[in-house]
C-alpha cells in the first residue's frame, strides 16, 4: 500500500538525522502542520501548569481558615491560573488545531503566510515564558520573585503603581501584549488562507463548518484582542510615563478599564468556544452517519453570535452601578445571544436524530459537550437577568458557570477533537480503554466539582478569596469541589499517558479510520509535507461522501 511505503520512507529519512537537526527543523519550521503541533504541545504544557495552580487553590480552600498557602501566593495562583488557561492553553490549542486542519480541509498546501504563522507561534510562546518568568524575575517591595496577583482582568486602579508596586503587573501586561500580537497574526493568516487558498470548486458554501467557524473566530480575534492591546498600552503609559488613563486622582476612570477589558473579554469567550462548536460540527455528523443538520443556519447562527457578542460586554459589569436603562440594554442583548446559541444545540440534536450513532470516544466527549454546554448556557441566562446577577456575580456561582462552559463545554469538545484527529496527525489510534477511563473519570470529577460549586455561590461565597469563615455553610461543598478536582487531575494524567503511549505504540490508523467525508481524510496519516499530490477539485460539502457514494452524491442535494 503506497501509504505504508510513504511511512517507511519517512522513517528511514528521520533516522538519518541527529536529534539536534530535528530540533532545528522544528524550531525553524513554517509548515502549518508542524506549527499546529507546536501550538498544541505548548497548550498541553500550560494545561498541566494551570491545573497545578488550580489544585493548589483547591487544597487551600478545602477547609476554612486553611494555611496551605499564604494569601499572597493564593492571589497569584488565581491570577496565573486564569491568565494561563485562557491565553496559553485554550487559545493556542485552538490556533493549533486551526493551523493543522484548515489548509487540509480546504485543499491547500499551507497557510497563506507561513512565515507569519511561525512568527505568531513564537510570539505566543515568548508571551508564555515571560508570564512565568515573573515568578523569578518580578521584584519590588516584596523581595525577589513575584507573579502577577491582580486577577486575570487586572482591574484598575489595583494595577496602578500605587497599588501594585514592583513588576508583577508589568509581566502580565507585556506577556499578553506580545502573545496578543501573535494572536492577531494568526487571525490575519486564517482569514487570508480561508478566503484566498480554497481548492477549485470549494465555494464558501461548500467549506467544511470547521473552516467557516474558524473564519468567524479569526474575524473576532482581529476586533476583540485589539481593544485589550490598546488598554494594555494605556496601562503601560500610566505605569511608566506618568499617564492618567486610569488614575482616579487625576479624574481617570476605573470603569473605563472595565469597559475596554470586557469589550475584549466577552468576544474572547466566543473566540474560545466557536472552535469547540467547529469540532462538534465535524465530529457529530461522522458518528451519527449523517450530514450536519441545517448547514446554512449553522453558518448564519455563528455569524450572528459573533456580531451580537460585540454588544453584550457590560453584562460582566452589572454590579458597577450603571443606570437601569444601560443595565436593561445589556440584559436584552445577553438574552438575544442565547437564541443563535440554542439553535446550534438543536441542530446538533437534529443531526443525531435518525442517525446511527457510533459511541466511539470522540462521540462520547461530544455528548458530554452537548449536555454540559446546555447547562452552562442556562446558568448564563440566569446571570443575564441582571438583578439575579447582582447576587450571582462575583461569587462561586459565576466561577461554576464559566468553568462549566470552558471545561464542560470547550474542554470536552477539545478532547473529542484530540481522539478524532490524533490518528490523522500521528498515524496512530489513541488507546480505547484508556480513552474510556479518561472520559468516565473526567466526567465524574467534572460534575463533582462544578455541579457542587454553584452551591457556595448561592450561599454567599465570593470569588477570589484565599480563605473563608467557618459556619457560613460553605465548608462541605468546598471539600467536595476539591475532591472532584483531584479526580479530574488523575483523568488528565490518564489522557497524557494515552497520548504518549499511543504515539509510541498505538495501532496504525490508515488514512480514514472513521469513514469520514472531509478532505483531510483523503491523504495519508500523517499527511505528506505537501498535503496533496495534486490539488483536489470538489463539487459538494462532503467530497469523500461523493467519492464513496457515487450513486448518491451530496452535490445533488445542496
Amino acid at each position: 500500500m503506497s501509504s505504508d511505503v510513504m511511512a517507511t520512507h519517512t522513517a528511514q529519512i528521520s533516522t538519518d538525522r541527529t536529534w539536534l537537526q530535528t530540533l532545528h527543523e522544528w524550531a525553524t519550521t513554517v509548515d502549518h502542520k508542524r506549527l499546529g503541533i507546536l501550538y498544541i504541545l505548548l497548550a498541553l504544557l500550560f494545561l498541566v501548569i494551570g491545573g497545578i495552580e488550580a489544585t493548589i487553590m483547591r487544597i487551600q480552600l478545602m477547609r476554612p481558615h486553611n494555611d496551605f498557602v499564604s494569601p499572597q501566593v493564593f492571589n497569584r495562583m488565581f491570577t496565573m491560573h486564569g491568565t494561563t488557561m485562557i491565553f496559553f492553553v485554550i487559545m493556542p490549542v485552538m490556533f493549533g488545531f486551526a493551523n493543522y486542519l484548515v489548509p487540509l480541509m480546504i485543499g491547500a498546501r499551507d497557510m497563506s503566510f507561513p512565515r507569519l504563522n511561525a512568527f505568531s507561534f513564537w510570539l505566543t510562546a515568548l508571551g508564555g515564558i515571560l508570564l512565568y518568568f515573573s515568578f523569578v524575575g518580578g521584584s519590588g517591595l516584596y523581595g525577589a520573585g513575584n507573579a502577577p496577583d491582580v486577577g486575570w482582568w487586572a482591574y484598575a486602579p489595583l494595577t496602578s503603581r500605587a497599588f501594585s508596586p514592583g513588576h508583577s503587573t508589568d509581566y502580565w501586561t507585556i506577556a499578553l501584549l506580545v502573545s496578543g500580537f501573535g494572536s492577531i497574526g494568526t487571525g490575519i493568516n486564517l482569514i487570508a488562507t480561508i478566503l484566498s487558498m480554497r481548492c477549485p470548486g470549494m465555494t464558501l458554501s461548500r467549506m467544511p463548518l470547521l473552516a467557516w467557524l474558524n473564519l468567524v473566530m479569526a474575524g473576532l480575534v482581529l476586533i476583540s484582542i485589539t481593544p485589550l492591546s490598546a488598554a494594555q498600552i494605556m496601562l503601560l503609559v500610566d505605569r511608566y510615563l506618568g499617564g492618567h488613563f486610569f488614575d482616579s486622582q487625576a479624574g481617570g476612570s476605573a470603569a473605563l478599564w472595565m469597559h475596554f477589558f470586557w469589550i475584549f473579554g466577552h468576544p474572547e469567550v466566543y473566540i474560545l468556544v466557536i472552535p469547540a462548536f467547529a469540532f462538534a460540527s465535524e465530529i457529530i455528523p461522522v458518528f451519527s452517519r449523517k450530514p450536519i443538520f441545517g448547514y446554512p443556519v449553522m453558518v448564519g447562527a455563528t455569524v450572528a453570535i459573533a456580531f451580537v457578542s460585540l454588544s453584550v460586554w457590560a453584562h460582566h459589569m452589572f454590579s458597577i452601578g450603571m443606570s437601569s436603562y444601560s443595565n436593561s440594554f445589556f440584559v436584552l442583548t445577553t438574552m438575544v445571544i442565547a437564541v443563535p446559541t440554542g439553535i446550534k444545540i438543536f441542530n446538533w440534536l437534529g443531526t443525531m436524530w435518525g442517525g446511527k450513532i457510533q459511541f466511539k470516544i470522540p462521540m462520547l466527549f461530544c455528548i458530554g459537550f452537548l449536555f454540559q454546554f446546555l447547562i452552562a448556557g442556562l446558568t448564563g441566562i440566569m446571570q443575564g437577568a441582571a438583578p439575579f446577577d447582582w447576587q450571582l456575580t462575583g461569587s462561586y456561582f459565576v466561577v461554576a458557570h464559566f468553568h462549566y462552559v470552558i471545561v464542560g463545554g470547550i474542554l470536552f469538545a477539545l478532547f473529542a477533537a484530540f481522539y478524532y484527529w490524533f490518528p490523522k496527525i500521528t498515524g496512530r489510534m489513541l488507546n480505547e480503554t484508556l480513552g474510556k477511563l479518561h472520559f468516565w473519570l473526567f466526567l465524574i470529577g467534572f460534575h463533582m466539582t462544578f455541579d457542587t460549586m454553584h452551591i457556595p455561590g448561592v450561599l454567599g461565597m465570593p470569588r477570589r478569596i484565599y480563605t473563608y469563615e467557618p459556619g457560613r455553610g460553605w465548608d462541605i461543598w468546598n471539600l467536595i469541589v476539591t475532591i472532584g478536582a483531584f479526580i479530574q487531575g488523575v483523568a488528565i494524567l490518564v489522557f497524557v499517558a494515552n497520548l504518549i503511549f499511543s504515539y509510541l505504540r498505538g495501532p496504525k490508523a490508515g488514512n480514514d479510520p472513521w469513514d469520514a467525508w472531509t478532505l483531510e481524510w483523503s491523504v495519508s496519516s500523517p499527511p505528506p509535507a505537501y498535503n496533496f499530490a495534486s490539488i483536489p477539485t470538489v463539487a459538494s460539502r462532503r467530497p469523500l461522501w461523493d467519492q464513496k457514494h457515487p450513486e448518491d452524491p451530496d452535490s445533488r442535494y445542496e
Partner: protein
Amino acid sequence: MAEKHKTEWPVLVGRATGVFVLLGGILLAASLCNATAPSENAVPSIFEPHSTPAELIRHLSYFVLVITGLIFLVVFILLTYVIVKFRNKTLADGREPAQVYGSTQIELAWTIIPILIVVVLFLATARVIHAIQDARKPATAVEVTAIGHQFWWEFRYPALGIVTANELHVPVSDPAHPTPTFLKLLSADTDHSFWVPQLAGKTDLIPNRVNETWVDPQQTGIYFGQCAQYCGTQHAKMLLRVSVDSPEEFAAWVQAQKQPAKQDEKEIAGRHVFETTACINCHAVGGTNATGRFGPDLTHLMSRSTIASGAAENTPENLRLWIQNPDAIKPGSLMPAMKLSDNDLDALARYLEALR
C-alpha cells in the same frame, strides 16, 4: 456478545449523568432549605431574603429558574431519547441512514420559540431592575455613606453625625411604615463591592464614582456579608456584619455613637502612648486630637464585636496581637506592626478597651 455490552454504555452515560443532575438538584434543594431562624442562621443565602431588594431578586430568580429548568428538561429528554433510540444496533449493516440536510419548518420553530422566551425574560427582568434601581428614597430613610478601603469599611451617618467602621447598624423596617436605609457607596482606593446577600444584591464601590444601594430589612438580627470585588491581598477578610436593630435599640446605639470618646482618667498612660506614637496618623478618637482618616475610627471600638473588619473577635488578646503583629491575624493588611514595649502595649490596650 461483546457488541451487546457496548450498546449498554450510552444508556449508562445518559443514566449516570441524569443521576448526577438529580443528586446536584437534591444537594441544591437541601442547601436552600434552611429551617433555622435568621438571627441564628449565619448562612448568607440569596434564597433567604429579609429585605425588599433581595426578595424581589428571589422572585425573579424563581421565575428564571422555572423557565430554564423547563428548557433543560425538554432538551435533556430529547438528548437522552436520541442517544438511546438512534444508537447503532447493527455495526455490520453497511447502509448509511437517510441523509437529511435540514428542515425549514423545524428550524423556524426552534428559532421563534426561543425568541418569545427571550422577550418574556427580558420584560420580567427590566421590571425588577427598575423597581430596585429607581426606587425613591423616602423622607424616613436612614442615610449612610459607605467608603471602601483596603481592607475595611468606613460607615458614616452624615445626618446623625456618626462615624464607625466595619459593623453597620440599621433600623428594622416595618412594611407599613418603611424606614429603609439608603447607602451611598464610595471608595478611597481600589474597587470593592458591598454584598450582604440576604439584604440586597451586590453593588460595587468604585473610586471617583458615587453608587447607591438600599435595604429595608424586615426582621431583626445579624446578617453577614463581605467584599465581593477583588481589592488586593486581604480581600478575603474584608467582612461585613449588619446589625438590624429594633427602633429602640437603634436609637440607643445612635445615642451612644454620637458621644465623644469616654476618657477614663485611669488610662492616661495608654492615651499618651496612642497620641504620641503613629496611631493618630491613621486613626481617629472623637473628642481628642486623634483625627486620622486612613484607618477605622476607634471612638467606640468596644461597641463592635470584631476587629480587623471581622478577621478576629474583639477580645483583649486579639487586640494586643493586632497591635503588635497584625500579620498574625491578617497578613498583608495595611496596619503596621507597632513594635511597642510590653508596658506600652498593655497601657495602650487598656486605653482602647475603655473606648466603649
